[in-house]
């Protein structure tokens, strides 16, 4: 049977650690910093992932995207060969009609973009993305103004290329800072458009173009702005009975008749999502790994202090041995002290990391997970054990005669 019992050892270890509060705080600091940064970075990574997943969920699970060029490489990641980005395939209205004819149950929406300058009687805004699509695109992609903020354009306005516009949340506020934009006129490329709807805030998309800054108009108007009828992308809402996979296969078959296989990509939101998720995961792991280096540095700090402690307490060790402590009791005592030091650091680090995550989450998606907490605590515990062994062994192997004689 272990003598002293584990709770006696823990109690006496706590007591010796608390005798030196300042030193304990400084020793734990390395672990605190390491654990805090690990928690913060994993929280940001996790939060980002959850946020992006939510965004994609709002896009709808049944949506198939068709884009020019090769978006994905063979491994499922994003393609990064320069040639693929230079491909300037664009689709035509004929492709849309072909797709519609063959996919009777799906909703095919063309997308086309143009950059325009907008002016109103109050303000000017340059370089606004005019996003053209059809009357079904908005309702199918959660781009519906909420009650009181107007509506998406209807079939008639779409067919007639009516001079109507739906504004992104930020764009509406920029153009009409003082009053509601609804029903107001805006001028884009010499055309006077009537604002019929204002979208809800969709949130930023991390430096990329924000949906809140877009001007949504019938695609016919975009064709007038650009002077051609090129379609940049196709958005297909797959029908329930056919499903995403079958629709993708069908779309590929139709487009392959006309285009080379590298000239376009057909993908769905889950594919896009898994690629983005793998990028975020890799990034999170890499950053966490860097932060984990500071945990090792913290561990070395603990080892240093424990070695100093063993030297300082040589007489105490000698006395304990003289009155009956066998080597393993001394080893376990000092090991427990090292683990307590690192665990205190771990706990404080987790608290600071959680607080920091809370602060960051006000501006940026971040979320603490049980996984990252248990990982951080487990690692700091392990650091205590690993870096505590050498000092504890040194203590346990001291000869009681030498130790009692130590000045």
């Amino acid at each position: 049977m272990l003598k002293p019992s584990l709770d006696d050892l823990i109690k006496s270890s706590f007591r010796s650690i608390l005798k030196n509060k300042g030193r304990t705080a400084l020793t734990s600091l390395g672990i605190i910093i390491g654990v805090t940064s690990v928690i913060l970075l994993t929280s940001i990574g996790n939060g980002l992932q959850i946020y992006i997943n939510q965004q994609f969920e709002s896009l709808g699970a049944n949506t198939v995207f068709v884009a020019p060029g090769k978006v994905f490489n063979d491994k499922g990641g994003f393609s990064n060969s320069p040639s693929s980005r230079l491909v300037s395939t664009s689709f035509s209205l004929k492709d849309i009609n072909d797709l519609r004819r063959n996919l009777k149950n799906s909703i095919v929406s063309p997308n086309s973009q143009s950059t325009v300058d907008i002016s109103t009687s109050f303000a000017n805004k340059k370089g606004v993305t005019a996003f053209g699509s059809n009357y079904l695109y908005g309702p199918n992609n959660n781009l519906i103004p909420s009650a009181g903020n107007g509506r998406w354009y209807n079939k008639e306005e779409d067919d007639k290329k009516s001079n109507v516009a739906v504004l992104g949340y930020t764009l509406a506020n920029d153009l009409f800072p003082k009053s509601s934009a609804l029903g107001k006129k805006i001028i884009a490329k010499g055309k006077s458009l009537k604002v019929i709807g204002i979208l809800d805030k969709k949130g930023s998309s991390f430096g990329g173009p924000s949906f809140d800054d877009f001007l949504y108009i019938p695609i016919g108007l975009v064709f007038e702005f650009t002077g051609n009828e090129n379609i940049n992308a196709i958005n297909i809402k797959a029908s329930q009975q056919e499903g995403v996979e079958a629709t993708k296969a069908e779309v590929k078959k139709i487009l392959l008749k006309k285009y080379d296989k590298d000239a376009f990509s057909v993908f769905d939101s889950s594919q896009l999502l898994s690629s983005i998720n793998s990028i975020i995961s890799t990034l999170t792991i890499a950053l966490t790994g860097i932060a984990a280096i500071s945990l090792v540095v913290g561990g070395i700090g603990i080892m240093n202090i424990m070695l100093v402690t063993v030297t300082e307490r040589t007489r105490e060790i000698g006395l304990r041995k003289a009155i009956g402590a066998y080597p393993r009791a001394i080893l376990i005592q000092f090991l427990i002290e090292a683990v307590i030091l690192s665990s205190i650091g771990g706990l404080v680090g987790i608290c600071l990391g959680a607080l920091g995550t809370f602060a960051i989450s006000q501006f940026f998606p971040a979320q603490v997970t049980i996984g990252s907490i248990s990982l951080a605590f487990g690692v700091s515990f392990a650091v205590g054990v690993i870096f505590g062994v050498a000092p504890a062994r040194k203590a346990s192997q001291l000869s009681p005669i030498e130790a009692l004689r130590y000045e």
Partner: protein
Amino acid sequence: MTPSLSKNAKKKSPVLELKNIVKTYTLGNSTFNALDGVSFAIYPGEFVSITGPSGSGKSTLMHIVGLLDNPTSGQILLEGQDISHFKEEALAKTRNITLGFVFQQFNLLAKTSAVENVALPLLYSDVPKNDRNKLAIEMLTKVGLADKAPNTPAQLSGGQQQRVAIARALVNNPLIILADEPTGNLDSKSGSEIIKLFHELHHEGRTIVLVTHDMELAKQAERIIVIRDGKIC
């Protein structure tokens, strides 16, 4: 061979018996016998002092008697059982049960209360947790320091610290109390109080081994073992 025994010892069997103990130190090619065939016995209830000039082998003998060191050859019999072959762990357990140490430097844990210092040996014993504090207080009362139980060593005088150390030596009810120069760090008044305490303990029937270089102090014991050049004379 055996020096004159005290009168009450003769009828009992020895609590500790050393038989032809040799302790050899090797330094490079030369060897040196710190103890050269030492034999003696200590009987229950005896107050024995071990004395001798520095370099006589007195400290080495103290370490052997204290079971802190193994002899190179010879036998150590503790209540008749030969323990000279015991390994470190078994020796530690034997020390915990049978010996009470009193050191010149007191060796109390700093920033730790007197009662906790006294209870320290029980941490490594089979004494149940609930009894430890009670026993420690009992021992502090015995040495007249019950009121100092919560005080740390820094709050006690040298004499009081040594009395706490004696209480610690008594707490496991040892077979032998081994005191190494217990008055060496004390003024003469505190020193004589400590010796008085030893006499009281002796009268209670405890076995005391006092190691000192001071012949005057050694004479306080019933029996004196003088060691010189590693041999008893």
